[in-house]
């Protein structure tokens, strides 16, 4: 997997590139938009991590050029601004995800992995994991053939976890998908709902389905690496 990192702060580039390499990725870096564009043209990257404020050609212009050339490559935008309109604007321009500085490397990694896999791992209407069954059409959940009653929010959270079985999801990603912007600073709400789901799904079962990934978030089922 080869990642292109376009960011003008050389120290940040260095630290991120080192950490990504440690995680087993091949990383190319560019310190400005023009170099970035040249590299996009020269190699088919699996993921582009793009800062918005760049000298030469700024991130959103570069994004447009990337999209004109390749509609498929996932793009993760990094930004130091985080107004709602900015987010909407970049998603409309074709960004796949968006991360506000400062972010933890774990968060970046989780999001990068999610983008590299692109589609949810479970696209079927009925998701089977071990003796766990989730039916997305009837919104019914069973474990070891026993029906489990969930509130609508608990179900939404479980469905998000289950459709991403094997993938680590950060608390912020969960907030963004299951709650909304207004809950941004309320990451403990995720822990509370996870705790509740655990008592309903995992209590009394040998095989625990919901696992905590320290400092990052949660994973449903066994973590699958790329």
């Amino acid at each position, binding site marked *: 997997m080869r990642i292109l990192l376009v960011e003008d702060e050389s120290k940040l580039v260095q630290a991120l590139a080192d*950490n990504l390499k440690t995680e087993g990725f091949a990383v190319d870096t560019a310190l400005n938009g023009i170099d970035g564009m040249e590299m996009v043209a020269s190699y088919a990257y699996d993921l582009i991590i793009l800062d918005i404020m760049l000298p030469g050609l700024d991130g959103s212009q570069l994004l447009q050029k990337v999209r004109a050339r390749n509609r498929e490559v996932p793009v993760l935008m990094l930004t130091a601004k985080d107004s*709602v309109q900015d987010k909407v604007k970049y998603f409309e321009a074709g960004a796949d995800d968006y991360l506000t500085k400062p972010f933890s*490397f774990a968060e970046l990694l989780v999001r990068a992995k999610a983008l590299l896999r692109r589609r949810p791992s479970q696209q079927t209407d009925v998701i089977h994991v071990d003796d766990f069954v989730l039916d997305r059409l009837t919104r019914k959940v069973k474990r070891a053939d026993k029906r489990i009653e969930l509130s609508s929010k608990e179900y939404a959270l479980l469905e998000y976890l289950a459709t991403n079985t094997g993938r680590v999801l950060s608390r912020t990603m969960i907030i963004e998908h299951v709650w909304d*912007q207004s*809950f941004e600073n309320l990451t403990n709400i995720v822990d509370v709902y996870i*705790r509740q789901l655990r008592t309903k799904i995992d209590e009394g079962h040998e095989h625990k389905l919901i696992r905590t990934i320290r400092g990052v978030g949660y994973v449903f089922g066994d973590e699958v690496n790329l």
Partner: protein
Amino acid sequence: MNVRSINFRLTLWYTVLILTASVAFGAYTYLSFEHRLYTEIQNMLASRIEHLRDDVLPTLSSYTRDTLRQKVEEVYSPEQNDRFVRISKMDGTVLYVSGHPRENTFNPDLIPPLLNYTTTITEGMQSLRTSDHLLLVGYVTKLDNDQYILEMGTSITPVISALHKLIVTLLIGLPIVVLIAVLGGSALVSRALQPVEDMRETAEQISFSNLRQRLPLNRSGDAIEQLAKTLNQMLERLDQAYQQASRFSADASHELRTPLAIMRSELETILNRQDAPLPFREHIGSVLEENERLSNIVDGLFSLARLDAGEAKIDHKIFDIAQLTCLTLEQMQLLAEEKSLSVKINAPLPIFVKGDAGRLKQVIVNILDNAIKYSIAGGSLSISILSVSGNAVLTVEDNGIGIPQEALPHIFERFYRADKVRSRTIQGAGLGLSIVRSICQAHGGTVDAKSRESLGTVVTVELPLSTKPNTQI
């Protein structure tokens, strides 16, 4: 009707002016008409008197009383014409007086002499209105050492009646003229103020989300166009200031976040190194926590800066805030259940407000989160959203730890923490309630808290109801 409005005042002034002008015109018409009528009659009587003088006086001595009567009546027949004729000497001896008129408008015997016989009067024409009914003209002349007075008068009843009719006409006509003036004036004022109304409507639409819009110019070259131009220039400056402020906020945000991001990455790189000794890791973990705290403060500060810059109300949609409250509570249900709080919600009816649903949801989340955070396990939480005298009123009441009296006035201030020790254990930077207040104020509303220590807190948010419900929900 608004008596202080410019429409009303202009119309009032217009009406007063028209009324004054009409009254003055009516009075002038009446007085000049009256004067002209009397002058005409006087002139007519004067010429008759001259005629009488030439006809009768030279041969006066040849007449007896009866022949004089005959002569006068032959020529003038005063009784038939409602006229009065009297010929007398200066000493008061009456040589001839006409009889009762046909219409009986005056009694010729009771008419006092026009001229005071005792005084010496120079020869010539004298005239006087002796009563309400008679206009009298007198003429004094000398003949053979004797002074004679010729008096001729005519009934003025027709004149009075004509003048009376004129007054009636004026009194009926005047209110009609004034009424037309008021209606016309009011319409004219409205028309003249239409460009101002257009400007107002446009100005009302202008908010921070469309500061580029300008007021319409009517190209009339008058004060109203000048006003629109001046206001547009003001909008231009406002737009520039706003852009500068938001650019500054974005730049400053960028400048602060980038070093924070670098610091964090560097620290994490050290943490990832397997050879780092444990005490190192602990210290670095602690610095990372402070880095996160600093990031939260920067986040909060820039949220506030953006709210101040007008982002607190980007959307202007009408939506049901009762529904939003119920939905938000449902999304947070488990937080309350975790603390075994009994939650009651009273939201019987849809309540429509106009504004930014996303921002107002943030308000509800912040208030509910605080109420849950500061509740004691097993406590109760009661939420109501009602419409009270033109306002949507959201109250969130808990029976938690409460807020000390001395802290209460400051809890909406930036960075204020009621309890500095406790604040360490609760995330955030003491900006949550300031953000709540900024958003409420941007929506023309208020937020207020009442609290008794160890008894609980009531937070009340009031927002103006939308004037137009049932549209574009």
